[in-house]
């Protein structure tokens, strides 16, 4: 009798868990964006499909000969400093700012030649308008004014599992250890 009651108790708790709806996405989350993207495997997805993992995001284009290779190298350095046990909870996301050229095939080729074929590497492209929107959400500036000069901005952004911006590192000398440290912290705290 006792056992039966315990069983009922357990079932009722489980059913309760099941009925719990997924947490609502915070309104300042990038998962609110409704843009549609394609990855290097030619799958169509929305940003909210990346939900549940810590995201390290950078915007690049594959034909870039200047800053982007440095950013790509930075992403790989960050990846190396993320604990292997945490990597399954992390997506390293490279978003193309050149969606016309960076077709899924090209992104796949780039992933291959750059040694970025593991599951946690995600390459994305959208259309120009949604790419622009995403760049603006990242506050990725293509120019920045000092009294007489411009410089462009290279930004690596970290988002938590709910898509909230946690940290941005800007410039071509990114503190890799700092970024990786934050990612490890976020990946662990789940």
């Amino acid at each position, binding site marked *: 009798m006792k056992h039966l009651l315990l069983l009922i108790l357990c079932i009722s708790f489980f059913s309760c868990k099941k009925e719990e709806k997924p947490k609502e996405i915070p309104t300042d989350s990038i998962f*609110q964006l409704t843009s549609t993207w394609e990855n290097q495997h030619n799958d169509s997805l929305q940003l909210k499909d990346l939900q549940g993992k810590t995201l390290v995001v950078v915007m690049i284009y594959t*034909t870039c000969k200047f*800053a982007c290779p440095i950013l790509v190298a930075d992403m790989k350095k960050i990846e190396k400093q993320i604990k292997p046990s945490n990597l399954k909870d992390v997506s390293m996301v490279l978003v193309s700012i050149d969606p016309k050229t960076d077709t899924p095939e090209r992104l796949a080729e780039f992933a291959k030649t750059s040694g970025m074929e593991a599951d946690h590497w995600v390459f994305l492209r959208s259309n120009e308008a949604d790419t622009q929107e995403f760049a603006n959400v990242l506050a990725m500036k293509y120019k920045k004014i000092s009294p007489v000069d411009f410089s462009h901005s290279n930004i690596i952004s970290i988002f938590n599992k709910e898509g909230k911006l946690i940290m941005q590192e800007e410039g071509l000398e990114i503190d890799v250890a700092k970024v990786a440290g934050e990612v490890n912290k976020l990946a662990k705290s789940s």
Partner: protein
Amino acid sequence: MKVLINTIFSFILLGLASCQVEEVTTTPKAIAEGSKSITTSVKMIRLEGGKYKPFFGTDTSIVQVEPFYIDERPVTNGEFLEFVKAYPEWRRSNVKRIYADSNYLKIWESDTSLPDTISLDAPITQVSWHAAKAYASAVGKRLPLLDEWEFVAMADQNSANARDKKSYSDDIIDLYLIKNRQFNHVKQSPPNYWGIYNMFDLVWEWTDDFNSILITGDSRSGEYGDKNMFCAGGATSATDIMNYAAFMRFSMRAGLKANYTVNNLGFRCAKDYSANKN
């Protein structure tokens, strides 16, 4: 034993009850009502475009501005009110923070009403880039490109390009310094050479590519190989350093993020020439 059973049962009931409470709170929200397309009667001015030298860029960067239409004046409070009535997701209490910060339409009395002190004929302000873009799209238009806006901004009342006139920048600066000018009605001051009103005297204005010279460069030339955008600072510089008014605008834009809402920042809409051909 009976006591134990009773206790367990009450626990189960409690568990079920808490389940039910949760269910109530997670009931899906009512589907946004009222979505429809809206229209605006604002007159658009057609410009043929042409070559122009941006205030900032490399010395040789002459930009070709394609023919386009632009609203003769900024979008008004009244027009934006119609927009949020038709698009509930852009009402103050519904807007997502990723699209607009907490200052969004803050001066309004409620989601769909303005205080008596604010005129419906004054330009809309406290709107983010995302909101401006959504409005433009709702009326079948788009935001002007930075180069289009600046192309229009070269004109004074008498000439299409007044940048070499000594008074040009100074006059604009004088306007920029007037406080609370965003509460004035649109079209109360004389139009410029093109018949376009309020480029400087009421509000700052969003442009589509306020944040991304590379994207405009690319959509224009179809290539991404502008090394200057990707080498470190110093590659580009002001071509018109005496034009302090333009410098203020570029600095302003550089300080903006797409979800920012500012008390004297509004917008007007534009349209491709081809999109308006009948």
